[in-house]
């Protein structure tokens, strides 16, 4: 394997999401809950409008981590998050999530780094304690 590299510049990204993308995610993930697809269903569940799957947001955010480790998904050893806010996706709108990662810890003995991601939408945090451990 070639020498491992990391790319700190890869840790910032803005990802757009619209209804079409949520339909794609529903199909790809198997999570067909209608509150992620249909305004009426979302409102019936007490929500303002359709919201993105929390797992979509986590998946979209985590790609900066894969990019950081040179595009090798095999170097992402673990990841976890709490879900702290909703990403509302109105019909005919494109909403953005903003991802900013930072290296929180380096464990030289283990050859790993822990990254922490700050993930916001419209200036509000949507994920909490979103972290990943990578092979550095």
């Amino acid at each position, binding site marked *: *394997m070639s020498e491992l590299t990391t790319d700190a510049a890869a840790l910032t990204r803005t*990802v757009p999401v619209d209804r079409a*993308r949520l339909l*794609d*995610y529903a*199909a*790809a*993930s*198997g*999570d*067909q*809950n209608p*509150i992620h697809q249909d305004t009426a269903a979302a409102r019936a*569940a*007490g*929500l303002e409008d359709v*919201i*993105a*799957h*929390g*797992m*979509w*947001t*986590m*998946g*979209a955010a*985590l*790609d900066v*981590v*894969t*990019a950081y480790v040179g*595009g*090798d*998904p*095999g170097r*992402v*050893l*673990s*990841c*976890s*998050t*709490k*879900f*702290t*806010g*909703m*990403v509302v996706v109105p019909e005919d709108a494109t909403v953005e999530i903003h991802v900013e990662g930072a290296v929180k810890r380096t464990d030289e003995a283990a050859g790993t780094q822990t990254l922490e991601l700050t993930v916001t939408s419209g200036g509000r945090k*949507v994920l909490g304690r979103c972290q*990943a451990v990578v092979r550095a």
Partner: protein
Amino acid sequence: MTAFVVPGYDVRRRASTSHRDRRTRPDRLTRMALNTDFAGREYPPAGPFPVSREEIADFAAAVGATAAAHRDPAAAQALGHRDVVAPPTFAVRLAQRCEAQLVQDPEAGIDFTRVVHGEEGFTHHRPIVAGDVLTGVLHVDRMREAGGHGMVSTRVELTDDGGRPVTTVTSTIVVRGES
């Protein structure tokens, strides 16, 4: 269909309020109670789930994952992998099918319409690659009532066709008390 899961918010703040309510006015606990006897339960293996290149590419596209190793076998092989590699959260697709055994069991007392997603975690013992045939064993690690809400923590251990560990997926859902 998999678990109806909504990203959680404000759960802790509401929990403390509801907790007081429930202590003083037990009649206000409106939803059905969790069957906490399910805690500690381990389910028979679910699957097998064959993982295809197409599934990995579709998942990568849906979350906007950019790495060539998700789509291009040659790029994945250049990194030392047998075939295209799944994005870090891909295993949720398989884990939620395993979790459905619990969440959709009426005996468990989990009301879909009140469920919010609290936490999720993935530990990769090795990467998931196309061509894998995985099975998942669902464990109910915790199931309890807290402050008028139900909390359910599950763990799915995904293994390959040789029984070797691949990914551990942990998930916590919160079943909201009052709306």
